[in-house]
């Protein structure tokens, strides 16, 4: 049977029951083994809690356990017969925008947790704004702790109305609402008997059935070259293969391509996947492409097709999430990395800062600090091949690297 892959992120704080939800998903899908369960039971006892604390399944480091917090993105895995799931578990507190952006960058779907007792709050807005910035294709609004509001259909209906206002403002598409109790297990894997008024899918049904195949762009071919394979052995003397991962589109033998940023035309001589020649390869396969012409192609070049060309520019606007404790000041220079291309750049101007709670644009900003989201103008030392993040998510996300500290200081959505 064909089993595919879904990556999703859970947004919410400890108080919303996020860890309990993840624990519940793992537990109810049989992904927790008896020895792991025993370890959790022991810990629950140590902490003086009666029932098993499902939230303990997601605690990682001792530092976190001691302080009862989550300090970083953790990844958790489970599967059903239909899919393998990768959960990015990112903390929801305000100071952790950076972690949420990181976890969201790879996600096909986001579960936004809303506490049924509190309804739509500032944090809900913040998580939704980040989901929209990062262009996560599918949104599930899980209204949790329904058991604490007597499983009331009215509470659910009111939150739905409230949330739709945000969704409209942000232009979020494909939103599903679901009333749950992570603690009691309502509508997670088992349909709830406490909410007969809800006739929709369970959470696991949604996760198993959401269509992610069509999220992959198969029309705009982008192939960044990572590595040049030149065996230089006797039998493969003239072999020159460009190794990379197809990030969007398809590549077929005989098709015309353009080598960017130099804009040199050529034709595909062969496409290989795992060392075997194929007629056609497609995103997200890793492949090797060989061309009919002998052109000087290196890591950082991009193979595109003449009818669907990306942008090749040096002056770029980008929304960026600042991730470093030292502030971003206009005039600072960094390395911009987009796929296999690294190029020096200077941040020329900060146009505005986005308030992630209200969507307000604050102008007159002189610097950006940790967790700020700002619109900037960048100038790069040489042309960068990219697409607008909104048009082609797979080719519009870049990072900034500090030139001397070498740390990753920002995630950029290029425009």
């Amino acid at each position, binding site marked *: 049977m064909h089993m595919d892959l879904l990556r999703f992120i859970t947004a919410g704080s400890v108080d919303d029951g996020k860890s309990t939800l993840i624990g519940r998903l793992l537990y109810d899908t049989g992904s927790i083994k*008896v020895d792991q369960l025993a370890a959790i039971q022991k810990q629950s006892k140590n902490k003086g809690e009666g029932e098993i604390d499902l939230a303990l399944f997601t605690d*990682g480091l001792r530092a976190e356990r001691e302080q009862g917090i989550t300090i970083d993105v953790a990844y958790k895995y489970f599967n059903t017969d239909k899919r393998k799931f990768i959960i990015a578990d990112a903390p929801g507190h305000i100071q952790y925008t950076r972690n949420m*952006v990181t976890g969201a960058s790879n996600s096909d779907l986001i579960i936004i947790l809303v506490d049924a007792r509190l309804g739509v709050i500032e944090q809900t807005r913040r998580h939704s704004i980040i989901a929209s910035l990062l262009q996560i294709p599918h949104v599930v609004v899980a209204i949790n702790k329904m058991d604490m509001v007597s499983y009331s259909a009215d509470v659910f209906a009111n939150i739905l109305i409230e949330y739709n206002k945000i969704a409209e403002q942000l232009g979020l598409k494909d939103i599903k609402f679901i009333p749950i109790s992570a603690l009691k297990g309502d509508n997670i894997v088992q349909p709830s008997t406490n909410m007969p008024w809800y006739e929709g899918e369970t959470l696991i049904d949604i996760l198993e059935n959401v269509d992610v195949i069509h999220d992959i762009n198969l029309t705009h071919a982008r192939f960044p070259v990572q*590595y040049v394979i030149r065996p230089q052995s006797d039998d493969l003397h003239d072999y020159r293969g460009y190794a990379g991962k197809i990030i969007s589109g398809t590549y077929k033998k005989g098709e015309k391509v353009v080598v960017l940023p130099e804009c040199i035309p050529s034709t595909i001589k062969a496409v290989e996947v795992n060392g075997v020649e194929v007629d056609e390869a497609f995103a997200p396969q890793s492949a090797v492409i060989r061309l009919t012409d002998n052109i000087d192609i290196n890591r950082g070049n991009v193979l595109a097709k003449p009818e669907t060309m990306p942008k090749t520019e040096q002056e770029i606007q980008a929304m960026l999430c600042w991730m470093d404790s030292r502030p971003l000041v206009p005039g600072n220079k960094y390395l911009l990395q*987009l796929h296999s291309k690294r190029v020096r750049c200077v941040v020329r101007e900060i146009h505005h800062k986005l308030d992630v709670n209200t969507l307000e644009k604050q102008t007159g900003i002189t610097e950006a600090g940790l967790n700020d989201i700002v619109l900037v103008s960048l100038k790069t030392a040489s042309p960068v091949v990219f697409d607008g993040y909104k048009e082609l998510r797979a080719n519009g996300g870049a990072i900034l690297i500090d030139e001397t500290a*070498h740390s990753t200081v920002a995630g950029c959505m290029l425009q």
Partner: protein
Amino acid sequence: MSSYKLDYLDQLESESIHIMREVAGQFEKPALLFSGGKDSITLVQLALKAFRPGKIPFPLVHIDTGHNFPEAIAYRDKIVEELGVKLIVRYVEDTIKSRGLKEPVGKFASRNALQAYTLLDTIEEFGFDACIGGARRDEEKARAKERIFSVRDEFGAWDPKLQRPELWNLYNGKIHKGENVRVFPISNWVELDVWNYIKREGVELPSIYFAHDREVLVHGEHLVAVSPFIRVDEGDEIVTKRVRYRTVGDMTCTAAVESTASSIDDIVSEINITMISERGETRIDDQVSEAAMEDRKKNGYF
């Protein structure tokens, strides 16, 4: 090919090959840490695919504790010869002597933690700037927080609070001299994915992964192979059982599981229904404290 659909193993494979190629593209002197276990065997398989028809552009490195299963060493030497890849072996025994390290004592005295010293010396000796390892995030709580490109300082130390954010599929391998990046291409694979992949690809494994008769010491819930590296005390229960190994580490700290599985299909069926986690069933050294792995990683362990 006309459907443009990849199953989950194809997607995982493609991601891992992409990571392998990023290592070759970003670093001057990478190495692949090879133990003879199924995870590092999977890494070799992925590396072969990533660079075909060329050869793997980095050596395999084995940090040898001297407490290996002989079958794993035989397998290692066999595939190195078959594939024509370079193998570098460095011995924990030598580090113990040259650095005057204190050998752990006890019933199952494990050199597992001492491996970190030999590894750091080897990194320095060859100037490796990246070491590819087969750790998976599903194995253990501390590993769930590990990045795919994990930057270590010159003491090999992992600082969980200072990890580089990893966005999209962009990996930042820029480091200072003396620093080193540990790269984990199969981070997103779980145990069963590895077995299913080995099955699909028809990868050969060391014989100890399949059921065989072995003399074992019954230690609580664990079965530990009788070997010169463990201490057998009077009153110990020693029995011969039909067992296989679910993981391959040192003889001192890896437990066998009772099984009659003689083929990969049998193993996959067993893993599919097992009630016990991989580390829980097979690793004696993780039981010491809740934070055992976290502590070892901070000390330069992979």
